[in-house]
Protein backbone atom coordinates (compact mmCIF):
# COMPACT_ATOMS: atom_id res chain seq x y z
CA UNK A 1 0.00 0.00 0.00
CA UNK A 2 1.16 3.47 -0.98
CA UNK A 3 1.73 6.20 1.60
CA UNK A 4 -0.86 8.99 1.49
CA UNK A 5 0.13 12.62 1.32
CA UNK A 6 -1.82 15.83 1.76
CA UNK A 7 -1.95 17.84 -1.49
CA UNK A 8 0.86 20.39 -1.86
CA UNK A 9 -1.55 22.77 -3.65
CA UNK A 10 -4.03 22.84 -0.78
CA UNK A 11 -3.51 23.99 2.77
CA UNK A 12 -4.79 22.34 5.95
CA UNK A 13 -4.88 24.78 8.80
CA UNK A 14 -6.35 25.37 12.25
CA UNK A 15 -8.59 28.43 12.34
CA UNK A 16 -8.67 30.02 15.75
CA UNK A 17 -11.69 32.23 14.93
CA UNK A 18 -13.73 29.22 13.81
CA UNK A 19 -12.29 26.75 16.31
CA UNK A 20 -11.84 24.16 13.60
CA UNK A 21 -9.54 22.89 10.88
CA UNK A 22 -10.16 24.09 7.34
CA UNK A 23 -8.84 23.20 3.90
CA UNK A 24 -7.92 26.21 1.81
CA UNK A 25 -7.57 26.25 -1.98
CA UNK A 26 -8.12 28.77 -4.78
CA UNK A 27 -11.50 30.43 -4.31
CA UNK A 28 -12.59 28.02 -1.66
CA UNK A 29 -12.55 26.76 1.89
CA UNK A 30 -13.88 23.56 3.41
CA UNK A 31 -14.60 23.43 7.12
CA UNK A 32 -13.71 20.10 8.69
CA UNK A 33 -15.24 18.27 11.61
CA UNK A 34 -12.87 16.80 14.14
CA UNK A 35 -12.71 13.27 12.77
CA UNK A 36 -12.06 14.39 9.18
CA UNK A 37 -9.31 16.67 10.43
CA UNK A 38 -7.72 13.86 12.47
CA UNK A 39 -7.58 11.65 9.37
CA UNK A 40 -6.10 14.35 7.14
CA UNK A 41 -3.48 15.25 9.73
CA UNK A 42 -2.21 11.67 9.41
CA UNK A 43 -1.72 12.08 5.63
CA UNK A 44 1.89 13.17 5.93
CA UNK A 45 3.37 11.11 3.11
CA UNK A 46 4.84 8.50 5.49
CA UNK A 47 1.82 6.40 6.38
CA UNK A 48 -0.46 4.24 4.24
CA UNK A 49 -4.13 3.46 4.81
CA UNK A 50 -3.53 0.54 7.20
CA UNK A 51 -1.12 2.56 9.28
CA UNK A 52 -3.51 5.51 9.47
CA UNK A 53 -6.34 3.24 10.61
CA UNK A 54 -4.09 1.63 13.15
CA UNK A 55 -2.91 4.93 14.52
CA UNK A 56 -6.38 6.44 14.89
CA UNK A 57 -7.83 3.28 16.44
CA UNK A 58 -5.08 3.40 19.04
CA UNK A 59 -5.43 7.12 19.61
CA UNK A 60 -9.17 6.88 20.26
CA UNK A 61 -9.00 3.42 21.91
CA UNK A 62 -11.48 1.90 19.50
CA UNK A 63 -11.68 -0.58 16.60
CA UNK A 64 -13.56 -0.95 13.32
CA UNK A 65 -12.63 2.41 11.81
CA UNK A 66 -11.42 0.95 8.49
CA UNK A 67 -14.64 1.51 6.53
CA UNK A 68 -15.23 5.07 7.70
CA UNK A 69 -11.66 6.12 7.08
CA UNK A 70 -11.53 4.46 3.66
CA UNK A 71 -14.78 6.15 2.63
CA UNK A 72 -13.55 9.56 3.76
CA UNK A 73 -10.19 9.19 2.03
CA UNK A 74 -11.94 8.31 -1.22
CA UNK A 75 -13.86 11.57 -1.02
CA UNK A 76 -10.64 13.39 -0.17
CA UNK A 77 -8.91 11.86 -3.19
CA UNK A 78 -11.74 12.84 -5.52
CA UNK A 79 -11.55 16.39 -4.24
CA UNK A 80 -7.81 16.53 -4.73
CA UNK A 81 -7.10 17.05 -1.01
CA UNK A 82 -4.75 14.08 -0.87
CA UNK A 83 -2.41 12.22 -3.20
CA UNK A 84 -1.34 8.62 -3.28
Amino acid sequence: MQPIKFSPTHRLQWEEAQQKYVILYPEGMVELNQSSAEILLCCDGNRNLAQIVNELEQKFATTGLTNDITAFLEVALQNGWIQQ
Partner: protein
Amino acid sequence: MVGSNNNPDAKAFRITPPRWLLAELTYACPLQCPYCSNPVDYAKYPSELSTDDWKRVLTEARKMGAVQLGFSGGEPLTRKDLVELVKHARELGYYSNLITSGYGLTEEKIIQLKEAGLDHIQVSIQASTQELNDHIAGTTSFHHKKEVAHLVKKHGYPMVLCVVIHRENIHQMPQILAMAEELGADYLELANTQYYGWAHTNRDLLLPTKAQFEQAEQIAQAFKEKVAGKMKIYYVVPDYYEDRPKACMNGWGTTFLTIAPDGVALPCHSARDLPGLDCPNVNDYGIQEIWRDSKAFNFFRGFEWMKEPCRSCDEKEKDFGGCRCQAYLLTGDMYMADPVCSKSPEHAVIQQAIDSAGANASLATNEKPLVFRNSKNSKAMSLVDGKGV
Protein backbone atom coordinates in the same frame (compact mmCIF):
# COMPACT_ATOMS: atom_id res chain seq x y z
CA MET B 1 -25.19 32.71 8.70
CA VAL B 2 -26.99 36.02 9.07
CA GLY B 3 -29.41 35.21 6.27
CA SER B 4 -30.91 32.30 8.14
CA ASN B 5 -32.05 34.45 11.03
CA ASN B 6 -35.27 36.20 10.09
CA ASN B 7 -35.14 38.91 12.73
CA PRO B 8 -36.61 42.30 11.85
CA ASP B 9 -34.00 44.26 13.75
CA ALA B 10 -30.70 44.36 11.87
CA LYS B 11 -28.78 45.10 15.07
CA ALA B 12 -30.07 41.92 16.67
CA PHE B 13 -28.51 39.77 13.95
CA ARG B 14 -25.55 37.79 14.98
CA ILE B 15 -22.97 39.50 12.83
CA THR B 16 -20.72 36.88 11.26
CA PRO B 17 -17.02 37.70 10.92
CA PRO B 18 -15.51 38.43 7.50
CA ARG B 19 -13.95 35.41 5.79
CA TRP B 20 -12.72 36.96 2.54
CA LEU B 21 -10.67 40.09 2.28
CA LEU B 22 -10.13 41.73 -1.09
CA ALA B 23 -7.21 44.14 -0.92
CA GLU B 24 -7.39 46.43 -3.94
CA LEU B 25 -3.85 47.71 -3.65
CA THR B 26 -3.96 50.24 -6.46
CA TYR B 27 -6.03 51.51 -9.37
CA ALA B 28 -2.89 51.74 -11.51
CA CYS B 29 -2.92 49.24 -14.36
CA PRO B 30 -1.01 49.00 -17.64
CA LEU B 31 -4.01 47.28 -19.24
CA GLN B 32 -7.20 48.96 -20.37
CA CYS B 33 -9.89 46.25 -20.33
CA PRO B 34 -13.22 47.77 -21.36
CA TYR B 35 -15.05 45.49 -18.86
CA CYS B 36 -12.92 46.40 -15.84
CA SER B 37 -14.94 46.38 -12.62
CA ASN B 38 -13.10 49.35 -11.13
CA PRO B 39 -15.27 52.46 -10.79
CA VAL B 40 -15.35 54.51 -14.01
CA ASP B 41 -14.36 57.59 -12.01
CA TYR B 42 -11.40 55.91 -10.27
CA ALA B 43 -9.23 58.87 -11.32
CA LYS B 44 -10.97 60.80 -8.53
CA TYR B 45 -9.26 58.57 -5.93
CA PRO B 46 -5.53 58.75 -6.62
CA SER B 47 -4.33 58.27 -3.03
CA GLU B 48 -3.04 54.88 -1.89
CA LEU B 49 -2.63 53.38 1.55
CA SER B 50 0.93 53.05 2.82
CA THR B 51 2.63 49.72 3.46
CA ASP B 52 2.07 50.09 7.21
CA ASP B 53 -1.62 50.86 6.73
CA TRP B 54 -2.07 47.72 4.65
CA LYS B 55 -0.24 45.65 7.23
CA ARG B 56 -2.53 46.94 9.94
CA VAL B 57 -5.62 46.21 7.82
CA LEU B 58 -4.41 42.66 7.19
CA THR B 59 -3.64 42.11 10.86
CA GLU B 60 -6.98 43.41 12.11
CA ALA B 61 -9.09 41.55 9.54
CA ARG B 62 -7.22 38.31 10.24
CA LYS B 63 -7.89 38.71 13.93
CA MET B 64 -11.61 38.86 13.18
CA GLY B 65 -11.43 35.63 11.16
CA ALA B 66 -10.71 36.62 7.54
CA VAL B 67 -8.66 33.84 5.93
CA GLN B 68 -8.99 34.05 2.15
CA LEU B 69 -7.08 37.06 0.88
CA GLY B 70 -7.02 38.46 -2.65
CA PHE B 71 -4.44 41.02 -3.69
CA SER B 72 -6.02 42.83 -6.60
CA GLY B 73 -6.29 46.22 -8.19
CA GLY B 74 -5.78 47.57 -10.83
CA GLU B 75 -2.58 45.65 -11.26
CA PRO B 76 -1.20 44.76 -7.82
CA LEU B 77 2.28 44.16 -9.29
CA THR B 78 2.66 47.90 -9.70
CA ARG B 79 2.99 48.16 -5.88
CA LYS B 80 6.65 48.01 -4.88
CA ASP B 81 5.78 46.56 -1.47
CA LEU B 82 3.85 43.56 -2.79
CA VAL B 83 6.40 40.97 -1.61
CA GLU B 84 6.48 42.54 1.83
CA LEU B 85 2.68 42.48 2.09
CA VAL B 86 2.56 38.86 0.93
CA LYS B 87 5.08 37.94 3.59
CA HIS B 88 3.07 39.70 6.27
CA ALA B 89 -0.09 37.93 5.10
CA ARG B 90 1.62 34.53 5.26
CA GLU B 91 2.85 35.17 8.79
CA LEU B 92 -0.72 35.94 9.80
CA GLY B 93 -1.96 32.67 8.28
CA TYR B 94 -3.89 34.00 5.30
CA TYR B 95 -4.38 31.93 2.18
CA SER B 96 -3.35 34.52 -0.34
CA ASN B 97 -4.05 34.99 -4.00
CA LEU B 98 -2.50 37.38 -6.48
CA ILE B 99 -5.10 38.49 -9.02
CA THR B 100 -3.03 39.74 -11.90
CA SER B 101 -2.97 40.50 -15.60
CA GLY B 102 0.52 38.96 -15.54
CA TYR B 103 1.89 42.18 -16.98
CA GLY B 104 5.32 42.83 -15.48
CA LEU B 105 5.53 39.44 -13.78
CA THR B 106 9.02 37.96 -14.17
CA GLU B 107 10.30 34.55 -13.12
CA GLU B 108 12.38 36.25 -10.44
CA LYS B 109 9.27 37.92 -9.01
CA ILE B 110 7.36 34.63 -9.11
CA ILE B 111 10.13 33.00 -7.05
CA GLN B 112 10.28 35.91 -4.59
CA LEU B 113 6.52 35.79 -4.08
CA LYS B 114 6.63 32.04 -3.55
CA GLU B 115 9.34 32.41 -0.93
CA ALA B 116 7.30 35.15 0.74
CA GLY B 117 4.44 32.64 1.04
CA LEU B 118 2.02 33.45 -1.77
CA ASP B 119 -0.42 30.55 -2.24
CA HIS B 120 -1.70 31.06 -5.74
CA ILE B 121 -1.65 33.30 -8.76
CA GLN B 122 -4.66 33.98 -10.90
CA VAL B 123 -3.67 35.09 -14.37
CA SER B 124 -6.23 36.66 -16.65
CA ILE B 125 -6.12 36.17 -20.39
CA GLN B 126 -8.47 38.18 -22.58
CA ALA B 127 -8.87 35.80 -25.53
CA SER B 128 -7.34 32.78 -27.25
CA THR B 129 -5.60 34.72 -29.99
CA GLN B 130 -2.94 37.38 -29.78
CA GLU B 131 -4.84 39.79 -31.97
CA LEU B 132 -8.01 39.76 -29.89
CA ASN B 133 -6.23 39.55 -26.53
CA ASP B 134 -4.11 42.58 -27.27
CA HIS B 135 -7.06 44.49 -28.68
CA ILE B 136 -9.23 43.89 -25.59
CA ALA B 137 -6.40 44.48 -23.14
CA GLY B 138 -5.49 47.65 -24.99
CA THR B 139 -1.86 46.50 -24.59
CA THR B 140 0.45 43.99 -26.24
CA SER B 141 0.45 41.22 -23.68
CA PHE B 142 -0.68 37.86 -25.08
CA HIS B 143 2.62 36.00 -25.37
CA HIS B 144 3.87 37.26 -22.06
CA LYS B 145 0.68 36.10 -20.33
CA LYS B 146 1.10 32.58 -21.70
CA GLU B 147 4.71 32.59 -20.59
CA VAL B 148 3.62 33.70 -17.11
CA ALA B 149 1.05 30.89 -16.97
CA HIS B 150 3.85 28.37 -17.67
CA LEU B 151 6.09 29.88 -14.98
CA VAL B 152 3.30 29.86 -12.40
CA LYS B 153 2.88 26.15 -13.02
CA LYS B 154 6.62 25.50 -13.06
CA HIS B 155 7.04 27.02 -9.62
CA GLY B 156 4.44 24.82 -7.99
CA TYR B 157 1.52 27.18 -7.63
CA PRO B 158 -1.97 25.92 -8.38
CA MET B 159 -2.61 27.58 -11.73
CA VAL B 160 -5.78 29.58 -11.97
CA LEU B 161 -6.65 30.98 -15.36
CA CYS B 162 -9.34 33.59 -15.64
CA VAL B 163 -11.07 34.60 -18.85
CA VAL B 164 -13.77 37.25 -18.85
CA ILE B 165 -16.38 36.37 -21.48
CA HIS B 166 -18.29 38.89 -23.60
CA ARG B 167 -19.50 39.40 -27.14
CA GLU B 168 -16.06 39.98 -28.61
CA ASN B 169 -14.57 36.67 -27.44
CA ILE B 170 -17.52 34.38 -26.77
CA HIS B 171 -17.16 32.76 -30.20
CA GLN B 172 -13.68 31.62 -29.13
CA MET B 173 -15.00 29.43 -26.32
CA PRO B 174 -13.66 26.15 -27.82
CA GLN B 175 -10.22 27.70 -28.39
CA ILE B 176 -10.19 29.27 -24.92
CA LEU B 177 -10.85 25.88 -23.37
CA ALA B 178 -8.14 24.27 -25.49
CA MET B 179 -5.72 26.99 -24.39
CA ALA B 180 -6.54 26.34 -20.72
CA GLU B 181 -5.81 22.66 -21.25
CA GLU B 182 -2.58 23.34 -23.10
CA LEU B 183 -1.42 25.68 -20.32
CA GLY B 184 -2.21 23.03 -17.71
CA ALA B 185 -4.65 25.16 -15.72
CA ASP B 186 -5.77 23.57 -12.46
CA TYR B 187 -8.68 25.98 -12.21
CA LEU B 188 -10.40 27.85 -15.00
CA GLU B 189 -12.64 30.74 -14.22
CA LEU B 190 -15.00 31.51 -17.08
CA ALA B 191 -16.48 34.75 -15.94
CA ASN B 192 -19.30 36.08 -18.02
CA THR B 193 -19.00 39.85 -17.77
CA GLN B 194 -20.88 41.45 -14.90
CA TYR B 195 -22.20 44.80 -16.02
CA TYR B 196 -20.84 47.26 -13.48
CA GLY B 197 -18.18 49.92 -13.82
CA TRP B 198 -16.59 50.02 -17.26
CA ALA B 199 -18.57 47.00 -18.43
CA HIS B 200 -21.79 48.91 -17.83
CA THR B 201 -20.49 51.81 -19.91
CA ASN B 202 -19.64 49.38 -22.72
CA ARG B 203 -22.62 47.08 -22.29
CA ASP B 204 -24.07 47.62 -25.77
CA LEU B 205 -20.85 46.27 -27.22
CA LEU B 206 -20.14 43.50 -24.71
CA LEU B 207 -23.42 41.79 -23.92
CA PRO B 208 -23.74 38.61 -26.01
CA THR B 209 -27.04 37.46 -27.43
CA LYS B 210 -28.95 34.72 -25.66
CA ALA B 211 -28.16 32.31 -28.50
CA GLN B 212 -24.43 33.04 -28.24
CA PHE B 213 -24.51 32.59 -24.52
CA GLU B 214 -26.41 29.32 -24.64
CA GLN B 215 -24.07 27.86 -27.22
CA ALA B 216 -21.00 28.88 -25.24
CA GLU B 217 -22.48 27.48 -22.04
CA GLN B 218 -23.11 24.12 -23.70
CA ILE B 219 -19.54 23.93 -24.92
CA ALA B 220 -18.22 24.84 -21.47
CA GLN B 221 -20.49 22.31 -19.81
CA ALA B 222 -19.31 19.46 -22.06
CA PHE B 223 -15.70 20.46 -21.38
CA LYS B 224 -16.32 20.52 -17.65
CA GLU B 225 -17.41 16.90 -17.78
CA LYS B 226 -14.45 15.96 -19.94
CA VAL B 227 -11.86 17.44 -17.57
CA ALA B 228 -13.60 16.49 -14.31
CA GLY B 229 -10.99 15.52 -11.73
CA LYS B 230 -8.21 17.32 -13.63
CA MET B 231 -9.38 20.89 -13.99
CA LYS B 232 -11.95 22.65 -11.88
CA ILE B 233 -14.20 25.07 -13.74
CA TYR B 234 -15.77 28.08 -12.06
CA TYR B 235 -18.50 29.34 -14.34
CA VAL B 236 -19.90 32.78 -13.58
CA VAL B 237 -23.29 33.14 -15.29
CA PRO B 238 -24.36 36.34 -17.03
CA ASP B 239 -27.27 37.21 -14.81
CA TYR B 240 -29.11 39.16 -17.52
CA TYR B 241 -30.21 35.82 -18.92
CA GLU B 242 -31.36 34.36 -15.61
CA ASP B 243 -34.74 34.93 -13.99
CA ARG B 244 -33.42 35.06 -10.45
CA PRO B 245 -30.58 37.29 -9.27
CA LYS B 246 -27.31 36.09 -7.80
CA ALA B 247 -27.01 35.88 -4.01
CA CYS B 248 -24.78 38.88 -4.11
CA MET B 249 -21.77 38.78 -1.75
CA ASN B 250 -23.39 35.84 0.03
CA GLY B 251 -25.45 38.48 1.84
CA TRP B 252 -24.39 42.04 2.60
CA GLY B 253 -21.82 42.34 5.38
CA THR B 254 -21.74 38.60 6.06
CA THR B 255 -18.60 37.32 4.37
CA PHE B 256 -16.76 39.78 2.12
CA LEU B 257 -14.72 42.84 2.96
CA THR B 258 -13.17 44.93 0.20
CA ILE B 259 -10.66 47.68 0.86
CA ALA B 260 -10.22 50.15 -2.01
CA PRO B 261 -6.76 51.61 -2.81
CA ASP B 262 -7.47 54.81 -0.85
CA GLY B 263 -8.56 52.86 2.24
CA VAL B 264 -12.33 53.02 1.83
CA ALA B 265 -13.93 49.84 3.17
CA LEU B 266 -16.66 48.44 0.96
CA PRO B 267 -19.25 45.69 1.54
CA CYS B 268 -18.95 44.95 -2.21
CA HIS B 269 -16.51 46.39 -4.70
CA SER B 270 -19.15 48.56 -6.41
CA ALA B 271 -20.67 49.91 -3.19
CA ARG B 272 -18.80 53.18 -3.42
CA ASP B 273 -21.33 54.28 -6.07
CA LEU B 274 -24.36 53.86 -3.78
CA PRO B 275 -25.69 57.15 -2.35
CA GLY B 276 -25.71 57.89 1.37
CA LEU B 277 -23.70 54.88 2.54
CA ASP B 278 -20.78 56.95 3.84
CA CYS B 279 -18.38 54.06 3.40
CA PRO B 280 -15.78 54.37 6.17
CA ASN B 281 -12.05 54.70 5.61
CA VAL B 282 -9.51 52.52 7.41
CA ASN B 283 -7.54 55.69 8.11
CA ASP B 284 -10.33 56.74 10.48
CA TYR B 285 -11.59 53.48 11.99
CA GLY B 286 -10.41 50.02 12.94
CA ILE B 287 -11.61 47.04 10.91
CA GLN B 288 -13.69 45.63 13.73
CA GLU B 289 -15.55 48.89 14.21
CA ILE B 290 -16.09 49.19 10.46
CA TRP B 291 -17.40 45.65 10.13
CA ARG B 292 -19.65 45.66 13.17
CA ASP B 293 -20.81 49.21 13.67
CA SER B 294 -20.49 51.28 10.51
CA LYS B 295 -23.59 52.52 8.75
CA ALA B 296 -22.39 51.14 5.41
CA PHE B 297 -21.88 47.56 6.60
CA ASN B 298 -25.21 47.50 8.43
CA PHE B 299 -27.17 49.17 5.63
CA PHE B 300 -28.43 46.03 3.88
CA ARG B 301 -27.80 43.46 6.59
CA GLY B 302 -30.81 41.25 7.15
CA PHE B 303 -34.19 41.84 5.48
CA GLU B 304 -35.70 44.89 7.16
CA TRP B 305 -34.57 47.29 4.42
CA MET B 306 -36.47 45.39 1.72
CA LYS B 307 -39.41 46.64 -0.30
CA GLU B 308 -42.01 44.51 -2.00
CA PRO B 309 -41.82 42.13 -3.80
CA CYS B 310 -38.72 41.00 -1.87
CA ARG B 311 -40.06 41.72 1.60
CA SER B 312 -42.74 39.04 1.52
CA CYS B 313 -40.94 36.76 -0.95
CA ASP B 314 -40.20 33.21 0.17
CA GLU B 315 -36.92 33.24 -1.77
CA LYS B 316 -35.34 36.18 0.03
CA GLU B 317 -33.13 33.98 2.20
CA LYS B 318 -31.71 32.43 -0.95
CA ASP B 319 -30.74 35.55 -2.91
CA PHE B 320 -31.13 38.43 -0.40
CA GLY B 321 -33.00 40.38 -3.08
CA GLY B 322 -29.98 40.23 -5.40
CA CYS B 323 -27.38 42.90 -5.96
CA ARG B 324 -27.89 46.36 -4.46
CA CYS B 325 -25.50 47.98 -6.90
CA GLN B 326 -27.32 46.48 -9.89
CA ALA B 327 -30.67 47.62 -8.50
CA TYR B 328 -29.31 51.15 -8.17
CA LEU B 329 -27.50 51.18 -11.49
CA LEU B 330 -30.49 49.94 -13.48
CA THR B 331 -33.51 51.33 -11.61
CA GLY B 332 -32.09 54.30 -9.71
CA ASP B 333 -33.44 52.80 -6.46
CA MET B 334 -31.03 50.79 -4.34
CA TYR B 335 -33.85 49.31 -2.21
CA MET B 336 -35.52 47.74 -5.25
CA ALA B 337 -35.43 44.04 -6.08
CA ASP B 338 -32.53 43.33 -8.40
CA PRO B 339 -34.21 43.88 -11.82
CA VAL B 340 -32.77 40.57 -13.03
CA CYS B 341 -35.54 38.95 -10.99
CA SER B 342 -38.64 38.20 -13.06
CA LYS B 343 -40.77 39.20 -10.07
CA SER B 344 -39.33 42.71 -10.12
CA PRO B 345 -41.68 45.39 -11.47
CA GLU B 346 -38.60 46.84 -13.21
CA HIS B 347 -37.61 43.59 -14.92
CA ALA B 348 -38.28 45.15 -18.35
CA VAL B 349 -35.03 47.17 -18.12
CA ILE B 350 -33.10 43.94 -18.62
CA GLN B 351 -34.90 43.13 -21.86
CA GLN B 352 -34.33 46.72 -22.99
CA ALA B 353 -30.60 46.30 -22.34
CA ILE B 354 -30.56 43.04 -24.28
CA ASP B 355 -32.46 44.63 -27.19
CA SER B 356 -30.19 47.65 -27.20
CA ALA B 357 -27.10 45.44 -27.28
CA GLY B 358 -28.68 43.39 -30.08
CA ALA B 359 -29.37 46.55 -32.10
CA ASN B 360 -25.72 47.52 -31.75
CA ALA B 361 -24.38 44.12 -32.74
CA SER B 362 -24.13 44.99 -36.42
CA LEU B 363 -22.47 48.37 -35.91
CA ALA B 364 -18.92 48.67 -37.12
CA THR B 365 -16.43 49.36 -34.31
CA ASN B 366 -15.77 52.86 -35.60
CA GLU B 367 -19.45 53.77 -35.32
CA LYS B 368 -19.57 53.04 -31.58
CA PRO B 369 -16.09 52.34 -30.22
CA LEU B 370 -15.36 50.61 -26.91
CA VAL B 371 -14.45 52.97 -24.08
CA PHE B 372 -11.15 51.64 -22.78
CA ARG B 373 -10.30 51.80 -19.10
CA ASN B 374 -7.55 54.38 -18.73
CA SER B 375 -7.03 57.55 -16.77
CA LYS B 376 -7.89 59.84 -19.64
CA ASN B 377 -11.32 58.25 -20.02
CA SER B 378 -11.73 58.01 -16.25
CA LYS B 379 -11.03 61.72 -15.81
CA ALA B 380 -13.58 62.51 -18.48
CA MET B 381 -16.15 60.32 -16.74
CA SER B 382 -15.38 61.79 -13.33
CA LEU B 383 -16.76 65.06 -14.64
CA VAL B 384 -20.15 63.51 -15.35
CA ASP B 385 -22.07 63.49 -12.10
CA GLY B 386 -24.00 60.58 -10.68
CA LYS B 387 -23.50 57.16 -12.16
CA GLY B 388 -20.84 58.27 -14.58
CA VAL B 389 -22.44 56.92 -17.75
